[in-house]
């Protein structure tokens, strides 16, 4: 089964992760712009970060047969540094039209401060102007209210819910997100977000419409196989294959494909120029092997010789 991981901070991950993801069937992923574990203090470092995720990281992924897309935005944590935020907002439009940019994101609230609110709204305006989808990061603290408020603001700003992915949902937030017409993302991230057994229960309850599974793997203790493991567990638990395909592939493609920057042909039938330069192709798509779920680094650990 082809899989998409629509939320993965690969800039923090190793080549082992890419190998394991490709082997598990991941054909495409989306790298949202976020903070990198500690605050940036210069606009220039933020510019270089955005440049990395539209360029260098795309290339890295292509070497493993994975198509890499990204979202660009000023995240909620760093929105609280006004000097930095103003500088980033000046550069952001330059990056929003780069190849493979599928949304403005991840944006939204962290501590729900006035500055976070200000830059959230400004970026919703930008997304509207450029007809780009929006990836909303919902806060970890005061989550339920913060999630409702994020949706309130999207609507106040005139952004169509069908263009918005509310991410990091849980049992408490999903009903409202779906009921109000948004895409509902779930991050299978140990300890702090969703577990995949809980995710399977949610799929039993809600089915697969507008639900999107991602790993949100980053620099913290997280699992780049979050999507693959959820797909496997769901199938073993009797969730219909079509539902699994929707939540682990098709819905992400439909939601972010609204940008015009992400198409199935990108991995099934890439343009000649890409094949010569930036995308090595995917061995599973070339009719290779069955998807395998193995821990990142497993092959490396089992292999004594380094040549």
């Amino acid at each position, binding site marked *: 089964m082809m899989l998409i991981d629509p939320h993965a901070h690969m800039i923090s991950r190793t080549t082992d992760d890419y190998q394991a993801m490709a082997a598990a069937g991941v054909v495409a992923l989306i790298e949202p712009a976020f903070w990198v574990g500690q605050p940036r203090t210069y606009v220039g470092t933020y510019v270089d970060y955005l440049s990395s995720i539209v360029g260098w990281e795309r290339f890295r992924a292509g070497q493993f047969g994975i198509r890499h897309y990204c979202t660009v935005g000023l995240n909620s944590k760093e929105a609280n540094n006004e000097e930095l935020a103003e500088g980033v907002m000046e550069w952001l439009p330059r990056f929003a039209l780069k190849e493979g940019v599928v949304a403005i994101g991840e944006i939204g609230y962290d501590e729900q401060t006035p500055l976070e609110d200000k830059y959230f709204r400004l970026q919703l305006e930008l997304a509207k102007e450029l007809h780009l989808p929006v990836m909303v990061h919902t806060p970890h603290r005061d989550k339920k209210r913060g999630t409702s408020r994020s949706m309130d603001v999207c609507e106040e700003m005139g952004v169509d819910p069908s263009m918005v992915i509310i991410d990091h949902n849980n049992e408490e937030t999903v009903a409202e997100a779906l009921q109000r017409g948004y895409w509902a993302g779930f991050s299978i991230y140990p300890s702090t977000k969703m577990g995949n057994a809980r995710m399977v229960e949610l799929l039993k309850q809600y089915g697969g419409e507008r639900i999107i599974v991602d790993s949100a793997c980053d620099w913290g203790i997280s699992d780049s196989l979050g999507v693959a493991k959820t797909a496997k567990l769901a199938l073993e638990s009797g969730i219909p294959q079509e539902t699994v395909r929707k939540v682990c592939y098709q819905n992400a493609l439909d939601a972010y494909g609204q940008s*015009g920057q992400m198409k199935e042909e990108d991995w099934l039938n890439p343009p000649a120029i890409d094949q010569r330069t930036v995308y090595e192709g995917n061995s599973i798509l070339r009719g290779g092997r069955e998807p395998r779920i193995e821990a990142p680094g497993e092959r490396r650990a089992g292999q004594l010789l380094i040549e």
Partner: protein
Amino acid sequence: MSDTPADLLRRWVLAQADDQAEWVSQSLETISKGGPEKDLHVFLGLAPRRLGKADLELSDADLKAADAAHPGWTPAGWSIDGAARVLALLNSAGNRAFSDRFKDLRRTADMAELIALYRGLPLYPDPETLGFEVGEGLRSNIKAVFEAIAHQNPYARDHFDEHRWNHMILKALFVDSQLSPIIGLEERANPELARILVDYAQERWAAGRPVTDELWISVRPFRNDPEIKPQLDQAIADGHLTEETLQ
């Protein structure tokens, strides 16, 4: 008067632009008037969206015309969006020096843009002022970006000093890039490069790794240079190399 590279690019892009030809023409005119740089940014961003990414369809006559317009220029393998981007740069007027504008574009470029920006190198004004920018591209870990400078691009032959030339050849070997598409490989051969390449070959043999035959193109003219002759003779004696390879 014969065609300039910009004339040729314009003709090729418009021929393949279908219903976007009008948009291309109008945008180029706006950009050439020296308005805000944002006009150029928007065109560069929209180029692949509007025009797609198909390869430029070039005949042998087109390739000959390219070489006539700028000796060594080979647009084979260019895509339509890349060609349109270079065309826009050639048409752009601005208040700042070209190299400053180029730097700004390079800093914010995605992969396809980087490739296009560097493929256009031989065609830009004031080529000598782009030295730093070219260095940044050569240092890129994205092989296709490096190759946009190294392959089918006469800029290196025409403007690199010996040190930069030699290190480009070495990097090409190091990243498993082919040497034969490098323009000027024979003309720019030099004794220092031959010495470095022989050292490099020895390092590879010692590690049990293969050495590409392409490496010897830059060594052959110096086969009998006393600096490297003993090493080459030894390599032949050890069975790593044959005399024919060096002829």
